[in-house]
């Protein structure tokens, strides 16, 4: 009969928990959770950063999938690559799939061949003069003697000037992959893993469509499995779509592992210390209530929640798991929980308001992620405190003798004796400060990639595949905005001309331009104008062929095609839309020439490859004086954005700290008391920064967010220990016991994240682990001297 009765007494608590859980799930389901990293970047302030943000979110690069296949002999890898290529092309999910086997379709070849004298860069007036024709005819004859004659005979007579061959050569120039067994291979093969077949695919869906990206990656993996790879053959996939999926999977795996471990350890710890499972349930109530309040407020204000804001927000609300523990451990013998709640309320209220105030300032930030975080904390923390004060005492069954074991006497004695060692603490703090000054402040993370939750190994693979595929390192991008596609293409041609001398002298490895695939109408018309009329060409050709064994009719098709080309309408982007005929050309053009959002015209991209002299590039482009031309150094520009985001966060933290000090001064009766209470907290932050720097961590936004959690936690410790100063020794021991219990709980939850592989989670874990330990120790050591017993 005891168990059911016990359960019945727990019913209100369980019901409240179930209700909160269901409400949280409902809110999160109803509101979209976004995962766009740009949400944690400030709004663009320059044309360059606006361009970069747009490219980061919707640019062609976001639809790219880079694929490697390794772990088998070359023929098997080639077979797999071919099977994969066919399956992907057949799936309809991809705008372009390249692995070396993509032949140009018959219809497209025909289209290109028909337009060869308009599209080919070889076409100049001189090409159709007798001397050039003579040289070409001799070369043709020479070629016909050789082994490639069947191939040459097919197009050589229709195009003796080689315009078509030159057109195809211009398309494939700059390719860095090696062709083995008919497909692309990494050249040289990556060390250690043997040969690697390469494939590149561009999804038909945009990068913003994360679901379609996920499906495309799934289709890729399924196609690989369906090709029945030999044992040992591995598929390596990279690209933004994969990043999103893998990052989510990595975080999920990390969290599943850590939360299972942490739940087990925490349950064991609380069970040991409080001798009842009740404590675990109690600890969850204020946290769940705080998350619900915070998430609802953010959803109402912003219409969506950023995934990272939610994650960080819950991390920061982690401090509220301490509230029930503080409540229970502060209870004096014979006191009811409601009485305790009433007694500690001023301190708890001050602690939670101060923690919330420190974060609330961020609401004013124009970085959406930070603003959401601020709002989340501003509502979540006080809600948790209120729930602890008002609801929690009612949920605990009156007869439940929930009470913490006293600290082991030696530990209690050691903790009580800590204030006598404050000299050591000050020395340590001075040392940390000196160290930080000596290394020039905490080292800042200067890589935007590190802000993304993608594991470092995946990022390294991405860099490697990119290098092997010759996908350009997007260090510098040249963008050109123009009112029409034609104007954008003309601009691209001028960029190409301006940079040609740099390519020639090796200052620039190569340049990808939309005009390389589709010349502007102006250029096509200029080439038309270079074509001689039929009679002239026939006479010149006859003169050029004198003495050579060509029959008079051999070049009839050439003559007819040149004549037809003189009046052919230029090929435009509109001609490529729809239909199979222009699909490869359109696929190559799409990433380089695209309409700007909101019908603001067109954008052409010039992508330099292996740029050795950025200054020369800038100078050559500046001399063009093209309106709408933008040279963007991606790295510097993103760095500026990240710096701005971090500066903003720091600024709002500073404002928050000032508000906190003001609140403390008001609550504790004077600025001196406020500073004394805040000292352990400031010291903990200092020691944490020094500790992280010693561990080689580079400071990023996550560390800052974790410091905010630390600040909230440390505030409780300092306030509760300071509150007990001057009280009888049992009261002081009780306060220290509270802090020790809270510290260990925090370490067992957030501290365990330090063992995660995901950079974000590890950063939070490390910061919190170092920070809470320091905050607790400093709170116990730097108890305000004025009220400490002599």
């Amino acid at each position, binding site marked *: 009969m005891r168990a059911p009765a016990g359960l019945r007494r727990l019913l209100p608590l369980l019901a409240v928990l179930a209700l909160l859980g269901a409400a949280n799930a409902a809110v999160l389901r109803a509101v979209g959770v976004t995962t766009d990293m740009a949400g944690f970047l400030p709004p663009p302030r320059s044309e360059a950063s606006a361009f970069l943000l747009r490219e980061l979110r919707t640019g062609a690069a976001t639809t790219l999938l880079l694929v490697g296949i390794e772990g088998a002999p070359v023929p098997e890898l080639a077979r797999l690559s071919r099977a994969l290529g066919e399956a992907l092309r057949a799936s309809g999910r991809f705008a372009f799939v390249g692995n070396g086997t993509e*032949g140009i379709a018959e219809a497209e070849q025909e289209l290109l061949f028909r337009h060869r004298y308009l599209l080919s860069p070889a076409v100049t007036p001189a090409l159709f003069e007798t001397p050039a024709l003579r040289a070409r005819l001799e070369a043709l004859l020479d070629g016909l003697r*050789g*082994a490639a004659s*069947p191939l040459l*005979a097919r197009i050589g007579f229709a195009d003796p000037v080689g315009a078509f061959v030159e057109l195809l050569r211009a398309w494939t120039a700059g390719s860095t992959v090696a062709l083995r067994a*008919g497909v692309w291979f990494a050249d040289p093969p990556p060390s250690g893993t043997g040969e690697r077949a390469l494939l590149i695919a561009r999804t038909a869906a945009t990068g913003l469509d994360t679901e379609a990206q996920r499906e495309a990656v799934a289709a890729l993996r399924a196609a690989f499995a369906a090709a029945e790879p030999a044992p040992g053959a591995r598929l390596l996939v990279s690209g933004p779509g994969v990043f999103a999926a893998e990052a989510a999977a990595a975080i999920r795996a990390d969290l599943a592992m850590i939360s299972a471990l942490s739940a087990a350890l925490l349950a064991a710890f609380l069970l040991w210390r409080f001798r009842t499972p009740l404590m675990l349930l109690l600890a969850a109530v204020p946290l769940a209530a705080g998350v619900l309040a915070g998430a609802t407020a953010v959803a109402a204000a912003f219409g969506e929640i950023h995934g990272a804001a939610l994650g960080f927000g819950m991390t920061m609300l982690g401090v509220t798991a301490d509230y029930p523990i503080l409540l229970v451990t502060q209870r004096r013998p014979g006191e009811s929980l409601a009485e305790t709640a009433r007694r500690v309320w001023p301190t708890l209220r001050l602690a939670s308001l101060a923690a919330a105030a420190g974060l609330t300032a961020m609401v004013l930030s124009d970085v959406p992620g930070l603003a959401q975080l601020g709002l989340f904390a501003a509502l979540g923390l006080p809600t948790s405190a209120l729930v602890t004060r008002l609801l929690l005492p009612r949920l605990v069954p009156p007869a439940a003798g929930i009470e913490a074991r006293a600290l082991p006497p030696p530990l209690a004695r050691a903790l009580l004796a800590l204030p006598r060692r404050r000299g050591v603490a000050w020395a340590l703090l001075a040392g940390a400060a000196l160290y930080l000054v000596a290394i020039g402040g905490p080292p800042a993370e200067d890589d935007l990639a590190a802000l993304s939750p993608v594991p470092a190994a995946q990022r390294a693979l991405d860099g490697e595949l990119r290098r092997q595929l010759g996908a350009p390192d997007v260090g510098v991008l040249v963008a050109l905005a123009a009112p029409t596609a034609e104007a954008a293409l003309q601009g691209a041609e001028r960029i190409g001309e301006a940079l040609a001398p740099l390519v020639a002298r090796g200052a620039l490895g190569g340049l990808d331009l939309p005009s390389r695939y589709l010349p502007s109408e102006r250029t096509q018309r200029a080439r038309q104008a270079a074509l001689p009329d039929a009679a002239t060409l026939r006479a010149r050709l006859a003169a050029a062929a004198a003495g050579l*064994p060509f*029959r008079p*009719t051999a070049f009839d098709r050439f003559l007819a095609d040149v004549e037809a080309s003189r009046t052919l309408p230029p090929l435009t982007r509109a001609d490529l839309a729809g239909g199979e005929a222009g699909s490869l050309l359109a696929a190559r053009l799409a990433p380089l020439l695209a309409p700007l959002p909101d019908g603001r015209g067109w954008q052409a991209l010039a992508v330099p490859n292996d740029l050795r002299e950025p200054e020369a590039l800038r100078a050559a482009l500046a001399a063009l004086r093209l309106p709408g031309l933008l040279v963007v150094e991606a790295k510097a520009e993103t760095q500026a954005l990240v710096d701005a985001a971090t500066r903003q966060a720091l600024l709002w933290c500073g404002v928050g700290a000032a508000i906190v000090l003001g609140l403390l001064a008001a609550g504790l009766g004077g600025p001196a008391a406020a500073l004394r209470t805040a000292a352990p907290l400031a010291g903990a932050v200092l020691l944490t920064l020094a500790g992280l720097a010693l561990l080689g961590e580079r400071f990023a936004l996550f560390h800052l967010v974790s410091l905010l959690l630390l600040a909230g936690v440390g505030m409780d410790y300092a306030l509760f220990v300071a509150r007990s100063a001057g009280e009888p020794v049992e009261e002081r021991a009780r306060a220290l016991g509270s802090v020790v219990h809270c510290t260990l709980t925090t370490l067992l939850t957030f501290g365990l994240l330090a063992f995660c592989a995901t950079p974000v989670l590890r950063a939070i874990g490390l910061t919190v682990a170092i920070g809470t330990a320091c905050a607790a120790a400093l709170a116990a050591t730097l108890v305000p001297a004025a009220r400490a017993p002599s």
Partner: protein
Amino acid sequence: MPRRRSCCAALILAALARAARAEAPLEALMRAFAAIRASRAAFVEEKEMPELDRPLLSRGTLSWQAPDRLEKRTTAPIEEVLRVEGDLLTLERPLQGTRQVLSLDRSPEIRPLVEAIRATLAGDLAALRRHYAVAFEGDPAGRWTLVLTPLSGRVLAAVQRVALTGRGAAILGVESQHGGGFTRMRIEPAR
């Protein structure tokens, strides 16, 4: 109907036997080729094209190294080295300083010409049959003719027929018909 069944069986057996007889000399020839690990020869090639009013002549050497390396070195009037090894085809023009490497899979117009000679030299009937319908006439030990008709429509558009003639395990001539033109190669095995 036991009689009809036995009758059918006899017919099938007879057909099989005929097939086996037709196959046997070709297989014998292929075995003879497979036994030769390396060989060298001189060649003279004559190309006729409808666009040209006289044939183009060229000469050079051929060398074969089992299992899959074939080199055709043209020495006059142009210099050119065509080397096939495995799936890779290398075409070098030393005077122009050009060197092209391509995969045979990507060159449907060239591959059958390569395999017609290479697979025969290797004695690889299976490879030959992957690309051609094979018709054999003559005596594997004496004079023989092998007529190869491309199987794929795309190849057939470029090369309609390849005929090899030879004596014993030596190819003496290759004649191919493509478009409106002919290529005839006379081969003189080196002793």
